[in-house]
């Protein structure tokens, strides 16, 4: 067999040899360039197409065919071969089958769809379709499939339709797919009705090959219209059953599995037809179960069939037994050692969790492994899974993972998809506003302009409007948090290279609320913003925003530093008219009436409604004065002509004249965010009327005279809908139960006078002490969730907002004498635990009563402990001094404690857990790596400290861990410890200079969480 090709000319042989031996793309290109020149020369002389022997050793026809194959090589290796394609068209008419097929092949591969040569082939194809020679006919059908374009369909559709009843099964199976192609190209010529008719007939063909190829058509048509083939479900089921019973000839077997691809197709079609159709689905349950069992033969093709069954089971009307079987298959895939099967497992899990989240719970470790797998495909699939199982409880963990992946992948396509997903879950599930701000800021930084404008817009309106529940204090806190984050961005090393959208958001945020920064003075902010505003590489719109921010800050500061004056002066000569106008206005106001500035740029008023006085009554005094001095009174008729652009001033309520020709130029179109940012600055300067779209023509109104009106900046907040996301009754309320439940934690020793963002994670220092416990609870919760990614998915655990206030189930026993972890909020845990775990331990009544814990949280805690499958809180009677218990509770608990209370030292040197100190664990880096995956609980934490690597390791040693290795190159260190001889603790830290990023892993969730807290308080 396969001897046809071995008769090569020496020239072709040399070409192939050269290509085969070439070592680089460049070399290959040179070879092909030479080949093109040679071929052009040879093929220009018309090939002697006559048959018959011409020379003793060369057959010109054979040579001509070889030229075509060489043409195919030229295009395959990326070079143009259009100059020679006419020879391929000629060759299609050859009487030799091989030559004809080669001609068609080259045409199909190289002719662009709109190429005129395609038309030249129609005649030849028509001839071949009606040829009595089966091979010619088959070649014709294949050529039709690849060469016909929509215009040509009518010319051949009839012939191909006839072939559906050809004697040869080879022709019939190709003809039905060819017709499908025609239907794709020209549904008006080959209609859906016709296709349906043909398909029904072809499905019952006596040759299984025809049936097999028809399945493709059925799938495609059902995707388009599910109703089309509902009635054939029983036939499909019967076919699948026959295949399963090995009724097909053994030739169809693949590795002893009967026709796996036909099975997959059938199952897939069932999945499409059974969607949301209980009757159709019921007819499939049995066969799906059977097919899945039979296919499970331990080979890949079998797994592929099983996987197809899983997909179908998930998509059709649910059946509990089948779902369990599917979940079982998924869990076998996911636990497999083969990454291919793991991939199927993760994908299958992603499909099933959306509607049946309970199946996810058992796979949390495997999913974590997949997420950390170096295999990018697997990672992406796992992220997809995480995205689908996001709920209010795990959203923080999941978005963190997504953002982390985003910061690393160079794949723009993927980046866009993931960016949109982060936005979606952040808006839908944000546990609190501070988190939302932080996440979106991070996202703006890593994804830049891939983030939709409106997302930045939403962020700004959130800051401006607050949560909408009139809690001014928390709004201010949020703003402060946002400002500190933005300040951090502003002072980062390459601030000029930050994404445009982040810079613009930052400019607005700092302009409005820069004064809230505790760390940075307005002067410093101004200086930095001025520098940034002069960065030539930034687009003018961004610089405009920065200049506006500078103006606002000047107004807030009350003085204009030289740098700001210089920037504004410079931009009075800007080419951008808008910017120039604004700078000139600002300069004028600054020099003539600086006392107006605070009124023009009112502080924190961006969300106020602008009161417009359409009658301009504030000018009455001035008008009176003028009249008094003998001026002519205003007569509207004088001005009421066509080219009057003052219509707006005549606006007197109901009788607004229809705007006639608008003579003033239209404003430059602005995207909403830009518009908003521009307005926020300009709204005060320009007539307020303009910014809230009063009648046309008022655009250029005198700026200087306007500010007397109540010109609070009108923020074009067109995103009020977002308020619902965080608003009343929304998730923003979530943290509050924490503070009500934990009155004891008000004395947390975290004064932190100068909060940066990092600090605010643990406790944003605010002037108001009562805020602290809430934050801490939140932070605890955060740590907690990182470890429990699967929170809220667990059966029974409804993702209610109250889950947010879930206490850390630190292992505090029911007896009040438990050793609290050195976390500031430990008492809270203690107390909650008392009431939550209805343990037989002699929990004193009064204490339980005093903490009215909702039954909802009881259920949650219990289920969490179920899934964790760890002794989260085993009642251990060991009496150990409770921590920071003073005020009301101290007295209440006093009687219950064996030992006097003492404050837990915030920075005690050794970490203890349940009173058991951590012991250094002498392991090697390799062992560390092995153990890393075995530790279920992961708690990432970030500490703001300038500590270097050596100091970090010293600290870890001091805490009780064994420093395993310090990797100076990447500023990373690892340490290991052991608690109670059974619980492993692994610490990984990365020093960035300004902070230490730590990941703490342990076999016990409680330990990981408490250690994270302990370390962050010890290191700060």
């Amino acid at each position, binding site marked *: 067999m396969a001897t046809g090709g071995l008769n090569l000319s020496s020239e072709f042989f040399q070409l192939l040899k050269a290509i085969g031996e070439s070592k680089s*793309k460049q070399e290959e290109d040179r070879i092909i360039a030479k080949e093109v020149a040679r071929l052009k020369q040879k093929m220009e002389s018309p090939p002697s197409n006559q048959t018959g022997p011409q020379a003793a050793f060369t057959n010109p026809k054979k040579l001509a065919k070889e030229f075509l194959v060489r043409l195919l090589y030229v295009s395959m290796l990326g070079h143009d071969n259009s100059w020679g394609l006419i020879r391929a068209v000629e060759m299609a008419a050859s009487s030799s089958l091989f030559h004809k097929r080669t001609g068609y092949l080259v045409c199909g*591969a190289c002719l662009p769809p709109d190429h005129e040569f395609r038309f030249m082939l129609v005649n030849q194809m028509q001839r071949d379709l009606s040829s009595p020679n089966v091979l010619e006919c088959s070649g014709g059908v294949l050529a039709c499939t*690849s060469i016909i374009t929509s215009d040509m369909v009518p010319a051949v559709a009839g012939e191909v339709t006839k072939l559906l009843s050809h004697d040869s099964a080879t022709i019939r199976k*190709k003809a039905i797919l060819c017709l499908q192609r025609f239907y794709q190209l020209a549904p008006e010529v080959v209609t859906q009705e016709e296709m349906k008719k043909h398909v029904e007939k072809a499905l019952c063909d006596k040759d299984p090959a025809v049936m097999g190829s028809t399945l493709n058509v059925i799938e495609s048509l059902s995707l388009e219209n599910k109703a089309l083939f509902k009635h054939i479900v029983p036939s499909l089921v019967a076919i699948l059953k026959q295949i399963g019973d090995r009724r097909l000839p053994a030739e169809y077997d693949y590795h002893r599995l009967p026709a796996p691809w036909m099975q997959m197709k059938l199952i897939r079609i069932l999945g499409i037809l059974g969607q949301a159709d209980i009757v159709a689905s019921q007819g499939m349950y049995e066969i799906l179960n059977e097919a899945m069992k039979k296919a499970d033969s331990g080979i890949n093709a079998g797994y592929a069939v099983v996987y197809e069954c899983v997909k179908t089971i998930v998509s059709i009307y649910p059946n509990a037994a089948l779902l369990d079987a599917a979940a079982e298959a998924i869990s076998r895939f996911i636990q497999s050692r083969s990454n291919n099967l793991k991939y199927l497992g993760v994908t299958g899990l992603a499909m099933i969790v959306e509607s049946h989240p309970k199946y996810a719970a058992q796979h949390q470790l495997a999913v974590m492994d997949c997420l950390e797998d170096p295999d990018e495909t697997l990672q992406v699939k796992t992220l997809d899974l995480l995205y689908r199982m996001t709920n209010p409880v795990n959203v923080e963990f999941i978005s963190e993972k997504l953002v982390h992946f985003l910061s690393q992948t160079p794949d723009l396509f993927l980046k866009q998809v993931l960016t949109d997903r982060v936005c979606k879950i952040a808006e839908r599930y944000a546990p609190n506003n501070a988190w939302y701000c932080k996440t979106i800021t991070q996202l703006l930084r890593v994804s830049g302009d891939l983030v939709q404008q409106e997302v930045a817009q939403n962020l700004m309106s959130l800051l401006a409007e607050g949560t909408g529940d009139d809690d001014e204090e928390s709004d201010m806190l949020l703003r402060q948090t946002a400002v500190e984050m933005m300040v951090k961005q502003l002072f980062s090393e390459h601030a000029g290279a930050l994404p445009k959208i982040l810079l613009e958001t930052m400019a607005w945020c700092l302009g409005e609320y820069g004064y809230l920064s505790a760390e940075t003075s307005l002067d410093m902010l101004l200086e930095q913003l001025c520098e940034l505003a002069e960065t030539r590489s930034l687009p003018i719109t961004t610089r405009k925003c920065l200049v506006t921010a500078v103006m606002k800050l000047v107004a807030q500061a009350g003085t204009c530093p030289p740098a700001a004056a210089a920037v504004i002066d410079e931009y009075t000569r800007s080419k951008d008219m808008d910017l120039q106008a604004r700078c000139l206005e600002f300069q004028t106001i600054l020099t003539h009436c600086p006392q107006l500035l605070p009124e023009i740029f009112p502080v924190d008023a961006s969300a106020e409604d602008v009161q417009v006085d359409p009658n301009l009554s504030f000018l009455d005094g001035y008008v009176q004065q003028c009249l008094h001095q003998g001026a002519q009174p205003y007569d509207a008729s004088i001005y009421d002509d066509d080219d009057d652009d003052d219509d707006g001033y005549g606006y007197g309520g109901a009788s607004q004249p229809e705007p006639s020709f608008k003579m003033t130029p239209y404003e430059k179109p602005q995207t909403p965010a830009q518009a908003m940012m521009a307005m926020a600055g300009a709204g005060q300067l320009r007539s307020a009327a303009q910014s809230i779209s009063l009648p046309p023509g008022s655009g250029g109104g005198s700026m200087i005279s306007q500010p007397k009106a109540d010109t609070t900046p009108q923020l074009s907040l067109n995103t009020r809908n977002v308020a619902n996301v965080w608003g009343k009754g929304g998730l923003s309320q979530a943290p509050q139960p924490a503070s009500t439940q934990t009155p004891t934690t008000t004395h947390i020793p975290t004064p932190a006078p100068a909060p940066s963002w990092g600090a605010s994670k643990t406790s944003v220092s605010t002037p108001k002490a009562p805020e602290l416990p809430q934050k801490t609870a939140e932070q605890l919760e955060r740590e907690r969730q990182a470890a429990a990614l699967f929170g809220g998915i667990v059966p029974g655990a409804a993702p209610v907002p109250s889950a947010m206030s879930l206490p850390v189930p630190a292992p505090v026993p029911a007896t009040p004498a438990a050793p609290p972890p050195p976390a500031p909020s430990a008492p809270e845990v203690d107390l909650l635990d008392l009431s939550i775990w209805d343990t037989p331990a002699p929990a004193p009544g009064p204490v339980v009563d005093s903490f009215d814990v909702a039954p909802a949280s009881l259920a949650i805690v219990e289920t969490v402990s179920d899934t964790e499958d760890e002794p989260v809180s085993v009642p251990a009677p060991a009496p150990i001094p409770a921590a920071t218990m003073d005020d009301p509770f101290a007295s209440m608990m006093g009687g219950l404690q064996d030992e006097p209370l003492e404050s837990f030292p915030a920075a005690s040197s050794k970490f203890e857990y349940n009173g058991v100190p951590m012991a250094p664990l002498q392991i090697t880096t390799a062992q560390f790596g092995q153990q890393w995956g075995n530790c279920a609980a992961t708690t990432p934490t970030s500490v703001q400290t300038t500590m270097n690597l050596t100091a970090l390791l010293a600290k870890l040693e001091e805490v009780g861990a064994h420093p395993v290795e310090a990797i100076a190159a990447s500023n990373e260190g690892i340490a290991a410890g052991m608690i109670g001889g059974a619980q492993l603790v692994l610490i990984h830290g990365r020093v960035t200079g300004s902070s230490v990023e730590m990941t703490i892993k342990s076999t016990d969730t409680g330990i990981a969480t408490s250690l994270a807290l302990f370390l962050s308080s010890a290191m700060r």
Partner: protein
Amino acid sequence: MISFILMVNKQGQTRFSSYYEWISIDERSALESEIIRKCLSRSELQCSFLEYRGYKVIYRRYASLFFIVGTKPDPFAGEGAENNENELGMLEFIHAVVECLDKWAGSICELDIMYQLEEVHFVVDEMVQNGYIVETNKVNILRPIALMERESQKSDAMFR
């Protein structure tokens, strides 16, 4: 459905390409080199699937040659539909192609494919039509090829 089938060696040189949707020659080169670069960067232990510009790519390596199949959602599935291709099924299909080529040419190698490029196309054309798997029965696939060869030998003999 299948958008393209490629055979590319580990130097990144294309040895076979068959497209079932039109992509210009320049784009094909770019696509092929990107995909092979991605394939080469992956270890044997990693899974045989990857995503590239909306294509779900399934590849399998035989000695120095990568067999690569790119798939897209069916055109009738509508905009933004998910690609429901069975990755593992396609991976096994690649193997079916290779088994079929093996049966046809003894044991297929890179050079065999180079020397008989057009015939490899004919074999693949029997298996995949319009981006759908039309046949996996080796007997049915190879019968027309064998007939064609016999006929061409007959006519060759006539010319001599």
